[in-house]
């Protein structure tokens, strides 16, 4: 369903990706983990055409998308729902207008059809009856769920989640995790999530990939990742400040006495 082939990306002198390759099968949930600033979100944005890779190719449903023109890219975007880190809801629009935005602009639905879809999708994320509220009136968790409702309104084949549980309390994080699993079960969508929340990664993933220094360090099932002997991966999943991962301004290689 998704194939990333030898992807390179630099911003000025900063190398973000240096030869990333992996595949995601239909209906699979792949979680990409990695430290802050490791390029996880940049990777997602390249998959939806927001950022162009310097080298390499991204195939969505067999179609190379890296150098498509805007109109061709729109056809690919119809297949993809993107859930942003801070939800990225349009402040000036109501919840209903946010959720129906893509229905009018990408799929040209009528008002009647769009209203029904908005109701259904909000019910699916457990937020019926908030259609007329503005984003400023919602809590963080509600915003995330409205963001998910907006992403699934187009019935996409692929869902991309950018840090779906960041900034939420543990209970609300689990609500979002359950929602991701529910969507996988009910809609059979392929999903890629980027996160550094390991609890979430273990719960929602079929496979987990660790992004480190611009490359995929290791990829495997949650079980394989938990049992990995790689010291970098072990330090990351255990959340320890001691280990081989360099931390600016912190002597992290000292042994505890």
């Amino acid at each position, binding site marked *: 369903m998704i194939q990333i082939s030898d992807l390179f990306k630099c911003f000025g002198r900063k190398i973000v990706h240096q030869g990333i390759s992996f595949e995601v099968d239909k209906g699979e949930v792949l979680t990409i983990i990695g430290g802050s600033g490791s390029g996880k979100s940049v990777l997602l*944005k390249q998959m*939806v*055409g*927001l950022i162009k890779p310097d080298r390499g190719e991204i195939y969505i449903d067999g179609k190379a998308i890296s150098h498509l023109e*805007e109109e061709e890219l*729109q056809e690919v*975007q*119809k297949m*993809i729902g*993107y859930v*942003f*880190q*801070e939800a*990225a*809801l*349009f*402040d000036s629009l109501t919840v209903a207008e946010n959720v129906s*935005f*893509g229905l009018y*602009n*990408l799929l040209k639905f009528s008002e009647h059809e769009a209203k029904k879809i908005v109701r259904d999708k909000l019910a699916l994320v457990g937020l019926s009856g908030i259609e007329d509220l503005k984003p400023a009136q919602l809590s963080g968790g509600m915003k995330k769920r409205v963001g998910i409702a*907006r992403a699934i309104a187009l019935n996409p084949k692929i869902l991309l989640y950018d840090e779906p549980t960041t900034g939420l309390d543990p209970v609300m994080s689990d609500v979002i995790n359950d929602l991701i699993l529910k969507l996988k079960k009910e809609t059979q969508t392929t999903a890629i999530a980027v996160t550094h929340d390991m609890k979430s990664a273990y719960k929602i993933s079929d496979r987990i990939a660790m992004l480190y220094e611009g490359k995929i360090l290791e990829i495997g099932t949650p079980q394989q990742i938990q049992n990995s002997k790689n010291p970098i991966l072990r330090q990351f999943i255990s959340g320890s400040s001691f280990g081989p991962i360099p931390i600016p301004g912190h002597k992290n290689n000292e042994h505890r006495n």
Partner: protein
Amino acid sequence: MNTDLNQSNFISLIGRKILRSSEICGEVVILVKRTFYWFFHAPLNRRNVFLQLLEMGARTFPVTSLTLFFTGMVLALQSGYSFIKVFNEPLYVGRLVGASICKELGPVLTSLVFAGRVGAAVAAELGTMKVTEQIDALYTLGTNPIKYLAVPRFLAAMLMLPLLVIYSDFIGILGGFLIAHFRFGIPPNVYFDEIYIMQIREVVHGLIKAVVFGLIIITISCYEGLTTEGGAEGVGQSTTSAVVISMVLVLVGDYFLTALLVAFRIG
């Protein structure tokens, strides 16, 4: 040795600044080009256009009116006293107020107020949308941000600024009349006869300026907003830059535009 190094650093710094400035000029031109492309190649989002017309026109009107009302009063007061000193009578007050406001102060002062109010609002709104990924969200939902955000703002600015200038001209002339009549005792028919003898091209002179200033202000504001980086601090910087650069360009552009219009005998 050290001096050579400093010199080469200084030269490379200047070179980088020139390159960056050229890049920005190119990006601004591309923004304008894309905006006009989408204006002619996609249906207008009427709701957005209406909201922008309301924001830029109706809600800016009170502050521009107040500015020009007092400017007209000050002009009448200053010119009245100056002419009394020279001619012993307050002559040509209507002519001076009318010509100054319609050709120069109306478009320039209205544009400066417009840059402060509308330019700042546009840069802050688009900048906030940029740093909170709302611009990216527009792309993923099949909507080009230039088409959805920039086109309605360009259209509203280029329509509403000339209208505001026309309103402001009237208000300024009215302010001048109050002083001319009640302070210097100039009869209404004398004051307004001096206004009526103004040629239509003198008013057109001011309106052409308003359209160009509208384009300058909205281009700079949209560009600053859409290229914002770095969270709340970045939004603040973009907003400040949008206002400062717009005001400077309006004032500098005013001279060159006046020279051009005079050369073409417009006004």
